[in-house]
């Protein structure tokens, strides 16, 4: 079976997704329809087989987590905590950089990148408008930290969910492999951001003394409870051997029932583009696997690694990291999953971890590939701050290089590959 037309179909989807000519979900659905039509007409699969490529467990985990995150976001728990903490350090710019960075990363570890970024940037720009600080360095740093946050847990990002489920990692197992790396990278990144921005950090506190924070304590407590419930159930899922998706869906049901928000409104605010994109793209990857179209990349990696797990892990890290500089992280993760599966190593924990790090950490090098960076630039401009998108690469590229370099050392030591 010549896989050329299947690969061309795949490339078309990637180009459409990158060009953002259409919503990502539509591009993937067009591609899935095309590839399934090729497969059916070539007699390599049936329509019902193509439907079975949709990873229902991944979608259940994704939707469950999205619902809990949306409810918790509405409860204002993170808003309350972030304001409380920022208030304490407002007059100390270096500390504010560290605190805003850590808040960004930790919030995105538990909420979505988008929700975390909107919250932190809204706080920083509110303070900027009140004359308390120049928000540009703090906001760009926070966007970079948001991109880093979420690397270390199964539910931290959609690529993590896809990789974690295919790798068969439980929530605790995933965290044990990747969370230490993420925490160490916080230090590395904050040090780099401080070095880059040290002359530009201005925060007077000025007249913007924050008044008493007015939020519903009941809602804040509800949000904290729901998040703890989801995390506990995800950990329990690994111990009692039931799927993480079941834990996420159970948490979602409790969240909807307990929080008292309009359920339909919560549903409306979910990121359906990502859900439909994930469903359609898993079909595309399923078809490519069926016609062995990705075997070439796996064979190349295998040949280049020459049977060394250490080298193979480093190659997966660097190739997926380079790819995620230019492509959306989810495309990179979903495309590399069958490649890692095809590599002939009995223990693939290092390879899966390398893929998580590569797919997550390439995102801030160039503004084109980083939704969070572009979103931050847009928000800054909307509030009247001028910022050149390409100037961000001056900090984004070194940070990405440092992340990938540190991750390489981490993988070699964590999995005893040297």
């Amino acid at each position, binding site marked *: 079976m010549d896989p050329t037309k299947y690969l061309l179909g795949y490339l078309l989807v990637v180009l459409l997704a990158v060009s953002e000519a259409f919503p990502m979900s539509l591009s993937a659905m067009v591609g899935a329809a095309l590839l399934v039509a090729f497969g059916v007409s070539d007699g390599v699969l049936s329509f019902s087989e193509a439907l079975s490529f949709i990873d229902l467990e991944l979608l259940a985990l994704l939707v469950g987590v999205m619902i809990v995150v949306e409810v918790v976001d509405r409860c204002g728990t993170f808003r309350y905590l972030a304001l409380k903490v920022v208030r304490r350090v407002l007059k100390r710019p270096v500390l504010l950089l560290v605190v805003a960075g850590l808040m960004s990363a930790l919030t995105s570890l538990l909420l979505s990148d988008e929700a975390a970024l909107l919250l932190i940037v*809204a706080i920083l720009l509110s303070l900027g408008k009140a004359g308390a600080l120049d928000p540009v360095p703090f906001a760009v740093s926070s966007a970079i930290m948001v991109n880093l946050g979420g690397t270390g847990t199964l539910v931290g990002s959609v690529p993590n969910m896809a990789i974690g489920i295919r790798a068969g990692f439980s929530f605790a197992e995933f965290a044990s492999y990747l969370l230490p790396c993420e925490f160490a990278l916080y230090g590395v990144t904050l040090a780099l951001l401080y070095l880059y921005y040290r002359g530009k950090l201005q925060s007077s506190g000025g007249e913007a003394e924050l008044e008493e924070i007015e939020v519903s304590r009941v809602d804040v407590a509800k949000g904290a409870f729901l998040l703890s419930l989801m995390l506990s159930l995800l950990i329990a899922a690994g111990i009692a051997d039931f799927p993480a998706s079941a834990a996420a869906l159970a948490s979602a049901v409790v969240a909807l029932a307990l929080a008292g928000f309009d359920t339909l409104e919560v549903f409306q605010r979910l990121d359906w583009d990502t859900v439909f994109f994930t469903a359609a793209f898993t079909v595309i990857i399923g078809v490519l696997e069926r016609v062995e179209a990705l075997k070439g990349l796996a064979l190349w990696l295998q040949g280049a690694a020459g049977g060394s797990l250490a080298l193979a892990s480093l190659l997966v890290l660097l190739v997926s990291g380079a790819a995620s500089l230019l492509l959306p992280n989810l495309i990179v993760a979903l495309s590399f999953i069958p490649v890692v599966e095809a590599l002939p190593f009995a223990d693939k924990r290092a390879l899966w971890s390398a893929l998580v790090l590569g797919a997550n950490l390439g995102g801030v090098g160039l*503004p084109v590939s980083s939704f969070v960076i*572009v979103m931050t630039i*847009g928000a800054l*401009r909307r509030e009247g701050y001028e910022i050149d998108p390409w100037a961000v690469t001056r900090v984004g590229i070194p940070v990405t290089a440092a992340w990938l370099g540190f991750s390489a050392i981490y993988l070699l030591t964590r999995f005893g590959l040297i």
Partner: protein
Amino acid sequence: MARMEELVEKRFKSVEGKYQLERELVSEALGKPCIILHVQLPEGCEEYRELFEELPHDEEFMAELQEFIREVLRRRAGKLERRENPS
């Protein structure tokens, strides 16, 4: 470069509603409540549509609007006080 500008604008537009909401929630939490107004382009101003759409991002206009709101609030508060304490 123009493509990048377009990208920034397009991507931010896709989350602008959520951003504005977050900004309002933060302002409220800081003890500075916000109100959201939907103002239609006044009749007879159809040819100024572009200028009208730029107003929310115009700092001078926002300052004038705040001043106007301040006056309205003072006037209304005074009226209310006079009604409650006619003497």
